[in-house]
């Protein structure tokens, strides 16, 4: 019997239908994938299930009984737990306190020992008995924080667990561990709703797939009945081969040379070069130091050793301001926290740079020039927004990423460091970002791109360097540039060079 059954759910936001009769049903003991482009209604549907939104029409049945979920407490009472991309852990509390946070409210005193024992038991049940319940949650890696989140859900005996893009922040190894955990929960009879943009995961983990499009259900299929192409076609009606647009460029002169760079205790002895027109990928596990390398080059973290040469000349970069003036731009991994000013218009985001050629004397804003430049970038990057006065926060993830890139094009940066540029955006937006990267490279930019998605590295990059534990594990290009090759270097099974 279906554990969860959502039928004909309607939801409007100010007269615009976000969901028009969407629904699906999932069984106990199955992993059910929910697929669809951003804006297809996955999040809205899940927020309704979680009680974060009310629904305007339709019915939710849990265990065959119609239930009314009007607030998060209702959802929890009905055994629904959602693990969002943004965790809701209290980062200053311990693991045990986080897992059992709801019970903290009961009674006057906290039995710390019992709490630790219960938390340890839950962690062990999930195969993570190496996490100390007494550790401060904020000090854990993202992957482990996620495990704590899942434990928290289990602590309240949830029968329906929704995972919203759980692997976006995980390494290959961690992902495998999470999958094992998900399978274990499935075998224990939990009904798992799994949201991800990564097709591979759907096929290796999920039993059935429901595809949403434009707020309605396209249909539900057994995973075995579909392949990559048919699934993508169901979601966007586009062919897989358009995934990685063709790029034919003969690389120009060397733009950036990094020589024996060391930074922050973790990263050491990193050397590489990037030519104009070239896309260099940096692969490796999360925590291998890839972000740290980009930040050190950009002057956001202090460099402890090594040299950075731009167009053949050594440059001292002590701050991001120095880097921008030297022609380097960084698009950080976390666009909401670091890349964009979500509350401010696109125009202000585009002009957020110490090298703004459109300013007049005394920093006077010349609005007509700035608007013209921003409009030009908007069409060059194919930015989908009502106007350049729209707040960045109202845009979709892919378009926010384009906004984050805009300021470097305004500044004339020709060396762009992109950290996970397609993290958490849907398939269509990924293709858009790939197109933008190719366009920038074709115009002579040198691009360094960190990515955890191997298909992306293989499809986009001319060469890929792989990092392991803060050091360079090797470089791959041409025939050698395969998923196996990257994994072997990243995990340390083999050393090239």
């Amino acid at each position, binding site marked *: 019997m279906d554990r969860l059954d959502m039928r004909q759910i309607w939801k409007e936001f100010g007269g615009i239908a976000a969901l028009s009769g969407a629904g699906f049903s999932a069984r106990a003991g199955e992993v059910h994938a929910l697929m669809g482009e951003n804006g297809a209604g996955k999040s809205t549907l899940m927020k309704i299930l979680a009680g974060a939104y009310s629904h*305007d029409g339709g019915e939710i049945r849990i265990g065959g009984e119609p239930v009314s979920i009007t607030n998060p407490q209702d959802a929890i009472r009905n055994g629904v737990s959602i693990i969002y991309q943004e965790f809701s852990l209290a980062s200053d509390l311990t693991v045990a306190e986080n897992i059992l946070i709801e019970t903290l409210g009961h009674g006057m005193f906290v039995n710390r020992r019992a709490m630790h024992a219960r938390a340890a038991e839950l962690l062990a049940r999930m195969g993570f008995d190496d996490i100390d319940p007494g550790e401060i949650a904020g000090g854990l890696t993202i992957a482990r924080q996620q495990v704590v989140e899942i434990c928290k859900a289990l602590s309240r005996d949830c029968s329906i667990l929704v995972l919203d893009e759980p692997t976006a922040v995980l390494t290959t190894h961690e992902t495998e561990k999470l999958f094992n955990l998900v399978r274990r929960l499935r075998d224990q009879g939990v009904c798992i709703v799994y949201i991800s943009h990564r097709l591979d995961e759907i096929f290796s983990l999920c039993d059935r797939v429901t595809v949403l499009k434009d707020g309605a259900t396209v249909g539900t299929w057994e995973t075995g009945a579909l392949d990559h192409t048919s699934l993508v076609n169901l979601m966007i009606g586009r062919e897989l081969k358009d995934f990685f647009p063709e790029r034919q460029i003969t690389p120009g002169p060397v733009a950036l040379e990094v020589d024996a760079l060391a930074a922050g205790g973790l990263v050491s002895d990193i050397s590489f070069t990037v030519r104009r027109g070239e896309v260099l990928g940096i692969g490796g596990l999360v925590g291998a130091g890839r972000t740290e390398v980009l930040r050190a080059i950009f002057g956001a973290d202090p460099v402890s050793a090594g040299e950075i040469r731009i167009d053949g000349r050594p440059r001292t970069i002590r*701050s991001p301001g120095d880097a921008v003036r030297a022609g380097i731009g960084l698009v950080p991994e976390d666009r909401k926290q*670091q890349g964009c*000013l979500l509350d*401010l218009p696109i125009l202000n985001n585009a*002009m957020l740079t110490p090298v703004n050629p459109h300013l007049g004397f005394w920093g006077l*804003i010349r609005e007509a020039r700035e608007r013209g430049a921003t409009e030009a970038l908007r069409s060059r990057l194919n930015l989908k927004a009502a106007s350049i006065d729209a707040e960045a926060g109202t845009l979709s993830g892919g378009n926010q990423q384009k906004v984050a890139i805009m*300021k470097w094009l305004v500044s004339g940066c020709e060396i762009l460091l992109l950290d996970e540029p397609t993290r958490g955006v849907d398939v269509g937006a990924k293709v858009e970002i790939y197109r933008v990267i190719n366009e920038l490279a074709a115009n002579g930019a040198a691009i360094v791109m960190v990515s955890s998605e191997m298909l992306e590295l293989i499809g986009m990059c001319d060469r890929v360097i792989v990092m392991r534990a803060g050091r360079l594990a090797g470089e791959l290009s041409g025939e050698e540039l395969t998923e196996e090759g990257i994994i072997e270097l990243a995990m340390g099974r083999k050393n090239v060079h």
Partner: protein
Amino acid sequence: MSTNPKAPGLVSLLVTYNIYIMLAALVVISTLLSEHFLTLQNLFNLLRQLAPLALVSIGMLLVILTGGIDLSVGSIAAIGGMGVAMAMPALPFDGATALLICVFGGVLFGALLGAINGALVAGFGMASFVATLAMMTMARGLAYMLSNGQPVRFPRDLPTAQILTGFGSKGLPGIGLPWPVLAVLVVIALFVFLLRRTNWGRLTVATGSNENAVRLAGLPVWRYKFLAFTLSGALSALAGIFVTARTAVGTPVTGIGLELDAIAACVIGGALLSGGRGTVTNTMIGVLILGLIGNIMNLMSVPAYPQQIIKGVIIILAVLMQGIGARAKRRV
């Protein structure tokens, strides 16, 4: 499912203009309550009294825009007002130049105290609440020390003082628009221009909106914060001088609680205490709303203590309205 199609329009209208509506309502109420309200005499008096709060609120807004708070404004105002009162008779010469030197010196000293706030916050990463709380008690202590806790009087016939008190009590010949009000209008215009038309203003707002993003864009975040506190200090000292000009005495108790009124004006004007949102003009509406509330109650002879309660209630109402409005807007 279906909602009244007219509702979003009305709601967004209320959201956008809620403080203007509130201001208009207060004006109407005041006019109905007292025949004296809508006289130039009363209005000019009201504005004259509000001039110092307006100056302080602009400085406060700058700090709030960067995501900080400045609790030391009232104490710095006291130092500015007293400093001028003490310096005028002490100077070996008289007249306009002497006054300019006194005012300039007072504002500069206020800027210095503000810069210390700024250095603590922007340079040492101290929470602005704590840094300016410390400055608030230090500056107040200094004000008491300088005067032994007594009001500082100065000879009324001193030419320098006559110019100052003339500025404080007289107005533009003809219409009688008070000089301090005129001066505040100039300052308002200046900061409206700076915030809207210069890169500095834009980046000050950006700093409060998302400090991390601004830093990672290669911009010197500390500079915007430091400048905001420095300007807040300068404007506070100037506000204190305006008080001395109006009352013809410098006292160490000037501006006690002024920081709260200034924060209230910003918040009523829609500024976000987390930074990144707020405008000078709306903050000035906030100042007017606060002033009108006081004026109405004075006209109605409401005693001082209940006034405070009513003021608090109105601040809560104003912010509640904005909250409801903002939520409605998000749904639209």
